[in-house]
């Protein structure tokens, strides 16, 4: 049913590009804030927390939409290793989109910091206070952030490879601005 679309559905494309902006901003804010002691630090941390929860909510919505609509099929002539890479990188990206905010939230909970978002919303602790848990989650948050950024670079490189070199429609499946996402006639 859903496998025959040429493009991702409009909600999927909207979510993808909105989240692309959020996640890139998030990663840059993250590495920026932990490397400064200026008053910017507080503003950046505050944005980081709010954006993190927004990304978590969007990622869960996106996962639901993906499960409902699926993804357009990859080109038939795409070599098997590239298919595998595409599939695995998507699993990894979804895991990080959902996992990173939860790790950050858990890390603050384990450190017994109040989790207060800009605007005043107070989130409950999702883990009990624990120094060891905090240390573990903090390491995970830092290293996975670099993994996440590396994966995004790989994702961008692959997208451009499809767009500029293979010209196989994979890039357009997500980048098209057309609202016409009807099922393609069978080939």
């Amino acid at each position: 049913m859903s496998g025959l679309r040429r493009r991702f559905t409009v909600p999927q494309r909207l979510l993808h590009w909105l989240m692309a902006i959020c996640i890139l901003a998030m990663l840059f804010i993250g590495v920026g804030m932990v490397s400064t002691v200026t008053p910017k630090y507080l503003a950046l941390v505050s944005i980081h927390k709010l954006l993190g929860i927004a990304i978590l909510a969007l990622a869960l919505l996106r996962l639901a939409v993906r499960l409902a609509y699926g993804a357009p099929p990859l080109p038939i002539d795409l070599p098997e290793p590239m298919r595998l890479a595409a599939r695995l990188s998507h699993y990894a990206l979804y895991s990080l989109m959902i996992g990173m905010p939860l790790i950050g939230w858990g890390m603050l909970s384990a450190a017994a910091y109040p989790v207060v978002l800009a605007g005043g919303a107070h989130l409950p602790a999702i883990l009990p206070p624990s120094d060891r848990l905090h240390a573990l989650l903090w390491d995970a948050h830092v290293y996975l952030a670099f993994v996440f950024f590396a994966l995004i670079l790989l994702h961008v490189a692959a997208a451009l490879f499809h767009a500029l070199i293979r010209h196989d429609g994979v890039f357009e499946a997500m980048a098209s601005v057309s609202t016409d996402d009807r099922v393609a006639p069978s080939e």
Partner: protein
Amino acid sequence: MPQPGRPPMRSVLGSFVLIAAVVGASAAAFAYTAGWFSPQRLTPDKMVDAFRPAGGVPLGHRKNHAKGICFTGIFEANGAGSALSRAQVFTRGQYPAVGRFNLATNDPNAPDATVRVRGMGLRIATPDGQEWRTAMIDAPFFAVSTPQAFYDLLLASARKDPTAMKTFAAAHPEIAAFGAWAKSAPWTGSYAEARFNSLDSFIFVDNSGAAHAVRWSLLPAAPPVPISPDELAKRGPDFLAQEITERVHKAPQHWTMVVTVANAGDPTADPTKAWPEDRRTVAVGTLTVQQIEPEPDGPCRDINFDPTVLPRGIRTSDDPFPAARSATYAKSYDRRTAEAADYPHTTPGAKP
């Protein structure tokens, strides 16, 4: 739509170059943001490193104010603070407090008489789920005006070269007043006799939304009894912890929390500049310390007394220190929790 045929070789090469440029520029922007191209940037890591003792890092301990003891008690608000801030902590009532008396040293085993500055970390929780964390010291004003100057001070004081401090003092004349205080202020033999000051300025926001620049202090109920550092040294290296334990065991100890309100034009961005004595002060409540607990298994050990953890109704001002302290304390916290396995607990495994 797969396109038949292969694109010409030159365009493929150009495309690869373009892709590499996009990826390379993105990675470079990321590295730049992370400060990898800015070795002079003052980072939390550098700040924490500057506290490293010559003899090696005491694993699992706070990187500064390393020696301390926990307390629990009550903050009883008298309601007067509500005129200045809408934070629930100022509404008449009793709120649980956890804190830590400490010495401003990077050595958790430093003898008491070798440490000039004493501090108190305090966390007050209110039923609305908010928290007020503050870390105060007994000096009446801070030593330097900016976080960068504080970092330079740490570096200068760690150097063997005797001219390093002279050079620093020449560049930062504001430190002279602190030096004079350190030399002349009387020592006492008890944490209970110390006045603890926020030094940094914060903004209280009242119910009408009006902002008030303030600093706060905890004034001890116990009258200070001056003693010389030599006399304190004779009483033992850990006298302050023993003394406060015994004193609180006999009777709870009290401090009055006094908020000082700035006049328009008073310096709020510089904690070396004390405000004139005649500024309006409001006594907002009483801290009662009811119980002392050793740090290793005490309730304060794993609390980061980050001075930017503030309830609604209190926010940071243009004072640059709270942000710098928040960033640095978080780094110290990250490091010491990562070293948790090496922290000398009294009972191994007693605390997760």
